[in-house]
């Protein structure tokens, strides 16, 4: 039996060793060709949309149908689509969303990390009940409860207001989870010694815990900002007024109002997409940790 396995091993090793170099090179090249094809398929819509957004309206589809490689390069380069959408207030929408995003990150960041800190660092009556509230909201898709939420906002007279766009997005159960996990691994001795030295809990939170929570803060900042920047249906319901227009609405509103200005539609799409892509790429490790780590439990 043992000799059998060993001879098997030897055979196997022999085969692997004797694989000719040329075969290895071909395998390797095939592997890279597969990687490149997949990358191309994934990026193809954005490549075309990007180049078409820099194309005059009458030529938006010229190289797409029938297809030519020129579809991926803005051969008739013009910024007319971008100039036009900015004239119609796209910049305003971007600023609106940027402001909302920053407010969501700062206020929501405090609210969620406070909750996470309390769950991780204290024992208190009702802890289980309160944590189950977080758990339940995590599992209910928020789309299912959108009608009562909308009616509530309407009754409060919040339709077309900043608070309607901001307040419902502040408490995020995924981020509360994530923070409580992060704070649980925090060395207790540091907190204890600060408490012994007479620091208040608020001081512990602001002066000791927050400064060394950079990975957590980047993760939650990304999630909260992207959540606000990419939200579409909720703003459509509660803030349709142009004064409160957010970027995702500014993209699709031009579908309805300007049915045929395709290059502007694509220019808006590219502006709406580029900010999250640029944020995500350098911080992808934090994003992945946030998305994957939070739900592993």
């Amino acid at each position, binding site marked *: 039996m043992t000799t059998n396995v060993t001879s098997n091993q030897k055979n196997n090793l022999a085969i692997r060793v004797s694989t000719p170099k040329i075969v290895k090179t071909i395998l390797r090249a095939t592997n890279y060709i597969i*990687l490149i094809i997949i990358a191309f398929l994934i990026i193809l819509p954005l490549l075309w949309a990007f180049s078409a957004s820099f194309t005059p309206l009458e030529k938006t589809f010229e190289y797409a*149908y029938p297809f030519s490689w020129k579809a991926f390069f803005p051969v008739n380069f013009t910024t007319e689509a971008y100039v036009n959408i900015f004239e119609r207030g796209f910049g305003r929408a971007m600023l609106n969303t940027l402001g909302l995003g920053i407010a969501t990150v700062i206020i929501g960041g405090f609210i969620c990390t406070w909750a996470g800190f309390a769950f991780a660092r204290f024992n208190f009556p009702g802890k289980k009940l309160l944590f189950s509230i977080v758990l339940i909201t995590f599992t209910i898709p928020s789309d299912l409860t959108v*009608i009562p939420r909308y009616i509530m906002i309407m009754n409060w007279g919040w339709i077309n207001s900043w608070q309607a766009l901001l307040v419902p997005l502040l*408490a995020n159960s995924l981020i509360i989870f994530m923070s409580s996990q992060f704070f649980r691994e925090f060395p207790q001795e540091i907190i204890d010694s600060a408490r012994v030295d007479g620091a208040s809990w608020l001081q512990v939170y602001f002066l000791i815990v927050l400064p060394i929570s950079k990975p957590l803060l980047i993760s939650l900042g990304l999630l909260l900002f992207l959540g606000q*920047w990419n939200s579409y249906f909720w703003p459509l319901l509660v803030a349709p007024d142009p004064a409160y227009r957010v970027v995702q609405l500014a993209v699709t509103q031009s579908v309805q109002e300007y049915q045929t200005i395709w290059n502007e*539609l694509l220019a808006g*799409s590219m502006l*709406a997409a580029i900010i999250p892509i640029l944020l995500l790429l350098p911080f992808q490790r934090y994003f992945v940790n946030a998305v994957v780590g939070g739900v592993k439990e």
Partner: protein
Amino acid sequence: MKIRSQTLVPYVFLFPAIVLLIIFNIIPAFATIKQSLYAASPIRGSGLVYVGFRNISRIFADPVFWKSVSVTLYFGLIVNPLQTILALGLALIANQRASGIGFFRSIYLIPVAVSVNVAVVVWGLMVDPNAGLINGILIRIGLPTQPFLTSPGQALMTIIMIISWIGVPYWSLFFIAALQGIPTSSLEAAVVDGANQWQLLTRIIIPLIRPIILFVLIADTIINFTLFVPIQLLTQGGPQLSTNLVMYETYRRGFIYGDLGSSSVMLGAMFVVILIIIGLQSLILRSNR
């Protein structure tokens, strides 16, 4: 050791988050269920009247509802296994050790950053039957052009393709994390024992990450069950109700026909379905441990 606190400190820290979650998530959840038992009163100004289960029987008598249920079932049976398998495949490819793999992984991640409606806008133009890039490519390689979203036979499949552009890379993040958690020693041992790549995948890797596969399949099911924005922007449930998923049907009833009662009944029912799915998930995961 945690501190047993006699003070109000933890409650103060928790207060804003819990209050917001209760107001914007818990109360609306109960309101959905309550709303499903009421209808707008025929007497003007007297608000809602209790109708009990009459809303529900009215919906059950409606063939449009049953059509949307069957479309949703069909959609779910295709999209969820498909996205899970493709995501696993993408993760296996993105997780290999090759120089420059980080670059490819970044590109594969890009759709995750793009909002659903931007994806839908761009893809919607790409699948345009008369000007879109996809048909443009089909013409070039000598294949017949396709109607895509304009045909009852293809619309749902086209929607599945579009949402998978984001869904597959998103779920592959979970698989990449799971694959990185597999100890290399167990893989090496299998290779030494003479396992080929396929055996490695089916006998070692898949059994080891089975809980994550289940998690992704179920989380994906829940998310796709409430799919709405692509339908609203691309097809409005058509052509011939072929993409009229239940979530869009609730929107149509509630916001287009103003029948919030029957819309809420459907939302309440969807709620129950999701709770059942979550219950099954925890049962399966528990029996797996």
